[in-house]
């Protein structure tokens, strides 16, 4: 290649290109190994994180499934030694208490979230901070709060008191999820509505909230899942009840409470019931989680 030697003194660009490509090629093996090792470390850590989760699920399924039979779902809890006990009272109690709690929390949570999403002022900042703190408060504290505010004043334990305490768990979760969902709606939509002569509340009601609906539903379902699994707020409020009780002004049994009381009993049949209840509760929460995702994905797809 005598032609190249006749070229003007070595072109610095080409010299650098050669040096850089040499460095890239010669370090390729090292870089590849480093990258592969890094990916495997990530996978290993993921596995380590997932093992306990899978372990819990498998353990609950293996322990709880044998407790499941027709009586389990149709009979009320029975004292130790008496066969054919079930948790109908706990299932009904949980449904009523969580239903009341949801009916109470959703409006407050969503409207509160709307306020947070629309304003960045000092009040919103304070509310946001309190909501965040409240989600982190130990749930036993909320139970005691429910006891002092409701049970002490009304004079008796009741399903309503339990729903009140569960609402306090749910509201901040819904509020923050709603805020995130509502903030995710592009500002250009609000501007379009604004330019058509809509007022602020109209924009929220007709444009922003419908657009954020998938996120709102997800947030609500996740909050329900969270609330349905709480035990501590119910201890001092709904109290518990061996019998079927559909009147929410009376003490009621709930699934977390059944697990709590029966798992510490020295009788195998009652512990068995506790495992069965744990499995049912776990499945309900799983269905809520998966369902919220499916609904969000489906709504998202329908709207393109």
């Amino acid at each position: 290649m005598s032609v190249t030697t006749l070229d003007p003194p070595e072109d610095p660009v080409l010299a650098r290109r050669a040096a850089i490509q040499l460095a890239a090629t010669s370090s390729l093996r090292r870089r590849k190994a480093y990258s592969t090792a890094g990916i495997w470390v990530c996978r290993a850590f993921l596995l380590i994180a997932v093992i306990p989760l899978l372990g819990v699920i498998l353990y609950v399924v293996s322990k709880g499934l044998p407790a499941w039979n027709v009586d389990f779902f149709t009979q009320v809890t029975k004292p130790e030694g008496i066969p054919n006990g079930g948790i109908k009272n706990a299932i009904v109690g949980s449904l009523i208490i969580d239903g009341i709690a949801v009916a109470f929390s959703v409006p407050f949570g969503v409207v509160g979230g709307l306020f947070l999403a629309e304003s960045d002022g000092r009040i919103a900042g304070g509310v946001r901070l309190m909501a965040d703190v409240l989600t982190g408060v130990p749930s036993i504290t909320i139970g005691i709060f429910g006891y002092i505010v409701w049970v002490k004043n009304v004079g008796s334990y009741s399903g309503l008191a339990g729903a009140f305490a569960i609402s306090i768990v749910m509201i901040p979760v819904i509020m923050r999820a709603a805020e995130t969902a509502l903030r995710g709606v592009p500002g250009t939509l609000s501007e379009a509505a604004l330019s058509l002569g809509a007022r602020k509340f109209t924009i929220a009601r007709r444009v922003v909230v419908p657009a954020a609906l998938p996120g709102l539903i997800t947030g609500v379902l996740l909050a329900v899942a969270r609330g349905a699994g709480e035990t501590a707020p119910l201890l001092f409020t709904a109290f518990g009840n061996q019998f079927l009780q559909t009147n929410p002004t009376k003490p009621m049994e709930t699934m977390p409470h059944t697990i709590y009381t029966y798992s510490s009993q020295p009788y195998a049949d009652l512990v068995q019931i506790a495992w069965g209840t744990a499995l049912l509760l776990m499945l309900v929460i799983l269905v809520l989680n998966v369902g919220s995702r499916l609904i969000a994905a489906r709504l998202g797809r329908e709207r393109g």
Partner: protein
Amino acid sequence: MNDPIVAPIENRGVSLTTQEVLVETGNDTPCVMRLEDVSVSFDGRAAVRGITLDVRQGEVTALIGPSGSGKTTLLRALNRMHDIERSAVVTGHILLGDTDVYARSTDPTLIRARVGMVFQRPNPFPTMTIYENVVSGLRFSGVRNRSLLEEAAESALIAAALWDSVKDRLKSHASTLSGGEQQRLCIARALAVEPEVLLMDEPTSALDPIATKRIEELVVELKDRVTIIIVTHNMQQAMRVSDRCAFLLMGDDKSGELIEFGPTAKLFSEPTDPRTLDYVNGRFG
């Protein structure tokens, strides 16, 4: 195929005489990238198909066409940017020098070190200083030699017409620069790796007219150093900066196809395809 990486150095001698060759024969400029029947599909649906064209060294090749014609999709196929998209499949042959870009034995990171890219919006790394941004590609490629890093950074910043305004603040963060400066920083970052080909995906679409003009001037200045392929929706821009132009259009099956490819002057003045004529005269798109 003993060592494709040193091949371009031998070509450089020819590149210096590019203009003469072009004047004499018009068609003898060496080809850096050759596309043969290239198609890109996502989830089995072709976005662009059957593209065959040669990219000549030391030239600016522009890809023009209305939205949906697959310009950007085609561009991103050239340095294997579609690898990160699971649903994307690239078929046909793309040759860089004598390296098959999509060969099983070809490492995509080495291809990307040889085929750089500048994106629609300036995307300097926000946590890095100006200097760190410029040398980032070199560091990713395993270059550790400090003098080489500094030399490459200075040369790239000079080439990107940014050196004079940033040489005293190389340690400040890239976010302190204006939009146009950030885009030139991204060009410098791409140039620092000394790629053989630079892909530019509508590099001025997020910039104001003055910053756009500077980038366009830069594109023309840079072609001695690096072969440029630029996607643009702006026909005037293609006319101002490119030597050769490829006109793409969405076909009946919703995938982009190459309608006409040739010297820019000819494509704009006397195109062979009536659709090209309609497009360059602004009758659609």
